[in-house]
Each structure stands twice: as structure tokens, then as C-alpha cells.
């Protein structure tokens, strides 16, 4: 298959955007809010959605053919939001101390092709979210399980011992908590 066939063309992407339902747009806004909160973005959720769309149109991001456009834009938004943390650190707008280290020398060793900074941002992000839910052992266990790469089915079986009802109520608490999750501004 040609490489261009593996990605949605700009024309098809614009057509898909025009066909987004009200539900799709609300889902995008919620993802924008959650990822903005997760990575301390100043921008509002709509700005993050628009940035993701612009990057696809500029050709700097691609959407694999056959993938749900909302899902794909969500991934791009997450990546943009995460990238903004690295940019702010690079521009000295966010001190290293906000990432839990005092200097660049304390960054962890790179692994799996990741830069030390990328690795640290990833670990710190999960740690901060877990701290946010420190009083809820179930949500904490859920986050740990998700972050370790377990699938929802594995989490129900191995972490919640098959208790789907507890898993679902835990998932909802995590869902609601992430929309309100806002710590002190890392850019300050």
C-alpha cells in the first residue's frame, strides 16, 4: 500500500471535520480540557482542538486511514499538550524543579528511544495525577494499572478481581476528577 493511502488525505479530513456531530465536538472539547489539565496548558480546550486540526492540514500530523477522526485528533491533542511542557522547560519558562529535579544533570537515563526529558515528563505527569487522587485507593490502582499498559479487561480481572461494578464506579470518579484536575500553574 502506498504511504499516502495509509493516511487520510486533507480533502477527506476536511470532509470528516464537516461531518462531526454535536456529540463528536463535545468529546473533542472534553479531551481538550482533560489534556490541558493534565499538562497545565493556558489555552482553552477549543484552542487545543484547533491546533490539532491545523497541524493535520499543514501536514505535520497525519491521521491513519480508517481511524476514528475524534480518536486521532485526541491523540494529536495529547501529544501537542505534552510537547508544550518540553517546550516550556526548553525556554526556561518552567523550572526543572517543577518536574521534580534540580537540574538537567538529574534527568533519568534515556530508554526506549525517549529523550531523558520526555521520559521525565511522562513519569511526572502520571505521578502528579496519582497524587491528585491520593485519597482514593481504587482510582490510584486504576491509574497505576493503566499506566503500566494493562487493558481495561485485564484491569477488571486482575486489579478489581472481576468486580466490574467497582471498576465502573472507579472509572467514573477518575473521569470526573480529570475534568476538574487543575494544579498550580507550571508556567508561573
Amino acid at each position, binding site marked *: 500500500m502506498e504511504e499516502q493511502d495509509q493516511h487520510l488525505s*486533507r*480533502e477527506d479530513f*476536511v470532509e470528516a*471535520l*464537516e461531518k*462531526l456531530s*454535536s*456529540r463528536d*465536538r*463535545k*468529546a*473533542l*472539547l*472534553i*479531551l481538550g*480540557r*482533560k*489534556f490541558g489539565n*493534565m499538562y497545565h496548558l493556558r489555552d482553552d480546550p*477549543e484552542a487545543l*482542538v*484547533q491546533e490539532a*486540526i*491545523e497541524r493535520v*492540514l499543514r501536514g505535520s500530523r497525519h491521521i491513519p486511514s480508517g481511524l*476514528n477522526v*475524534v*480518536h486521532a485528533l*485526541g*491523540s494529536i491533542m*495529547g501529544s501537542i499538550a*505534552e510537547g508544550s511542557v518540553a517546550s516550556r522547560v526548553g525556554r526556561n519558562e518552567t523550572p526543572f524543579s517543577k518536574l521534580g529535579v534540580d537540574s538537567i544533570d538529574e534527568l533519568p537515563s534515556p530508554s526506549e528511544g*525517549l529523550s531523558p526529558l*520526555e*521520559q521525565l*515528563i*511522562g*513519569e511526572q*505527569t*502520571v505521578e502528579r*495525577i496519582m497524587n491528585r487522587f491520593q485519597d482514593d485507593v481504587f482510582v490510584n490502582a486504576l*491509574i497505576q494499572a*493503566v*499506566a*503500566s*499498559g494493562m487493558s*481495561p479487561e485485564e484491569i477488571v480481572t486482575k486489579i478489581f478481581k472481576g468486580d466490574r461494578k467497582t471498576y465502573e464506579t472507579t*472509572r467514573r470518579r477518575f*473521569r*470526573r476528577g*480529570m*475534568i*476538574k484536575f487543575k494544579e498550580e500553574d507550571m508556567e508561573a
Partner: protein
Amino acid sequence: MKKNNYLENYIIDDVLSMSEQELDQLLEDSGVDPDHAAESLKKAISGVSLRYRKAQFSKVKEALAASKIDEDNSQKNILDDVKKSGKSAKDYLIDLIVSGRAPQGLTLAFREGQDITEAEAIGIIDDLKSLGYVKDNDSETSS
């Protein structure tokens, strides 16, 4: 994949699994009017889409204008060649046929007495040029 990326994927899947009512509730929890926010994003997306379509239309217009200029230049060159030869376009075309530099089909059509106008003759010469039978400022045909 990093830990935070697993979390992002989980969040995306979770949001995609929600009903519109659940999405509304979450937006309200974040202090946003769901319908107003969705409408605002719709307008923003329409703006992006309109800008894209305008840019595409401009490209098509530019391409069409460029091809029109090429066509006009080509016709002008033919007219110049025909003028230099001191003959009509029809006679110029006949010279091409007589000198054996026109396709067999065209020669036969002329033998069968098909009449053509000057404009049609210019069009045929243009086509022959495109096919490589005639070169610009072809001196042999004008002699």
C-alpha cells in the same frame, strides 16, 4: 509507549464511550455550557474548512489561468509561424502533409476532401506540435 501515553489512550477511549448526556454533564462540571461550546467549535471548524476550500479554489484558478496562458502562447506561436510562411493556416497544414510530417490519418482525411476552416487548421497544427510533429518556428514548413 510511556506511562502518560497509556493514560491518554485510556482517557480517549473513555470519552469516546460516553453518551452525549454524559459529555454534557462533564462539560457542565467544568463550568461550560455544552451546547454553546459545541456551537462555538462548530463555527471554528467551519472557518477552518472554508479557509481550506478557498485555498484549494485559488490553486485551481491559478492552474487554469496558467494553462490558458500556455494555450494562448501556443496559438500565438503558430500564428507567427503561419504568418512568416506567408501562407494561410490551411496551406501551411497542407505543406506539412505533403512533406510527410503529418500522421497518416490526417493525410487520408484530406484526401477524402474534408474541408476545414482556418481556425480548425490552427487547432490541428497546435495538436501536431503537442504530438511532436511540428517544432516552434519550423523553418522547413515555411520555405
